[in-house]
């Protein structure tokens, strides 16, 4: 699933003003509509209630305790407003938090390391995918899942290329996106995906979100 063109209506929740303003300006320059930029979880809920945005970008650490307010708020939004995509971004990779987020909300969610804002187009692409019901998981989370998986033996049976493809599947990429990332044809990607699912003993699934969930369940430590 790739971002469809056209302006998105976005709510930003980030307590650091410099990052809030920077994001707002960058997204506005790229033609999106930042309908609200707030600094805490409560204001975020109100803004989502008021504006019904396409997507909310949420920092994990926000006042008052600076622990996981953002994560809780993201889960609440997804429960109360399933149509609103939620992209959580965090200073640190917390695999467990990501797993929690994806367990409760299989579609229209994303979890990215805050550093990813530096690659602006990729970041905006991720926002678009989440806004349109896709799934985005930080490559670092996927890397950790692959490393820590207790199914290391089965994973070892995958070829390096298949591992690459599995990693991209887990990140929420569509076959088309995988093809363009790896510079191979969509047909070849399809063949790799079939092989991977066969080797891991998973039922093939063309739905990108369900495919992500299957991969993540499989990789659960």
């Amino acid at each position: 699933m790739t971002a469809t063109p056209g302006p998105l209506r976005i709510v930003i929740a980030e307590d650091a003003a410099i990052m809030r303003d920077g994001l707002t300006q960058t997204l506005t320059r790229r033609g999106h509509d930042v309908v609200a930029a707030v600094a805490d979880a409560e204001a975020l809920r109100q803004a989502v209630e008021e504006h019904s945005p396409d997507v909310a970008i949420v920092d994990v650490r926000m006042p008052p305790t600076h622990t996981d307010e953002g994560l809780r708020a993201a889960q609440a939004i997804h429960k109360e407003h399933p149509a609103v995509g939620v992209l959580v971004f965090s200073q640190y990779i917390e695999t467990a938090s990501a797993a929690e987020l994806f367990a409760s909300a299989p579609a229209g969610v994303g979890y990215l390391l805050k550093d990813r804002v530096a690659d602006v187009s990729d970041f905006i692409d991720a926002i678009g995918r989440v806004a349109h019901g896709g799934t985005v998981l930080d490559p670092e989370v996927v890397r950790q899942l692959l490393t820590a998986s207790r199914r290391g033996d089965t994973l070892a049976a995958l070829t390096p290329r298949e591992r690459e493809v599995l990693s991209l599947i887990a990140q929420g990429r569509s076959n088309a996106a995988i093809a363009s990332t790896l510079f191979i044809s969509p047909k070849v990607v399809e063949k790799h995906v079939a092989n991977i699912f066969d080797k891991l003993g998973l039922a093939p699934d063309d739905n990108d979100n369900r495919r992500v969930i299957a991969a993540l369940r499989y990789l659960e430590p």
Partner: protein
Amino acid sequence: MMAGMNAWLREHPRQADALLAAGLLALSAGQVAAGQAGPVERVAFAAVTVLLIATVISRRRYPVASFAAAAVIAAAQIAFGMQNGGPGPVFALQPTNADLAIPVLLYTLAAYRSRAVSVTGLAICLLGSAVAIASWSPSHAAHPTYALLGAAAGLGGLTLTAWVLGDSVAYRYRRAYYASLEERAARLEAERDAQARIAAAAERARELQERRARAIDESAARLRRIERDLHDGAQVRLAALAMTLGEIKENLEQSPGDDRTLALVGTAHQNAKDTLAELRDLARGIHPPVLDRGIGPALGILAGTSAIPVGLTVALTERPSPAIEAMAYFCAAELLANAAKHSGASRVTLSVREQDCGLALSVADDGDGGARLIPGGGLAGLRERVQTVDGRLEIGSPPGGPTIVTVELPRHA
């Protein structure tokens, strides 16, 4: 020989008094037999003798009463038992050798009773002696004055000698008694001093322990603040900078022309991203923010980033203090890294459970074993760190494995 007998007599006062009484009895027996008197008078005389001797037996127990009894008998003897150098009207009250009991009793009084009492006794004896000599008055003697002076010197000397001997014994007793009192007082004082010193040391130890706990808590809180400041300050600014550089780079890519500027911006962009990653590792090394949510979530993330699969169990009903949580976290991080680097293990088990008044964290791997504490090494450093809060670190790692490292920590520093 003499010294041995003296010692024996000192240790057996009853036997000594019995011997003395027997001696007096032997001296007096002849007198009872001699003299012209009827059987009744003889019996009465014997009774007075026995009474006098009895005071020797009772002298230690009743020094004053015994002395008084003897004094009364002696007074009666002076009044009724002698006159003008010869026997008096009452045969039974004639002076007898058993009167030697009187100096013995004076000695006893001086030895066992206060000075006031013994001096009174001495006065009574001297007075009695004077009266006795006066009433004896040997006018028939060839040199009455000499005889009188001789008798006075004899009686007075005997009395004074008995008193002085007794008093010196009392003096020795008193001195020994005072010495023992002084010694006891000194011992008590030394004991009190020692107890005071122990109490002071215990108080100081408690104070130092509290101070150490405060210092450890404060240091943990300070590290947490530094991480928070980095997160809210440098990290955010750097991320915003990297985002701006990323946007500039993409804009330049859209309108090609100035390749040199594009290359420079690309380098700056990459540097900013690398620095961001380094800063994140640094901040996490100072205080992983996930610790604010508890040791369980923090160890979960640690387990997730381990190079080998980790089986994690955390069973705690109560959260330890932040400083202890941080210490447990860094121990786990170091031990997991060790297992990944050195053990050759395929799997690690990390568990945290409650124990007594704290927690026990154990890291077990199925690797090659042979882990040892080397001075200056990682495990030794870890143990030193754990010991700053009175914790313990134990290693079980036989050659061939498995390796189990257990860290015990209190709930509070």
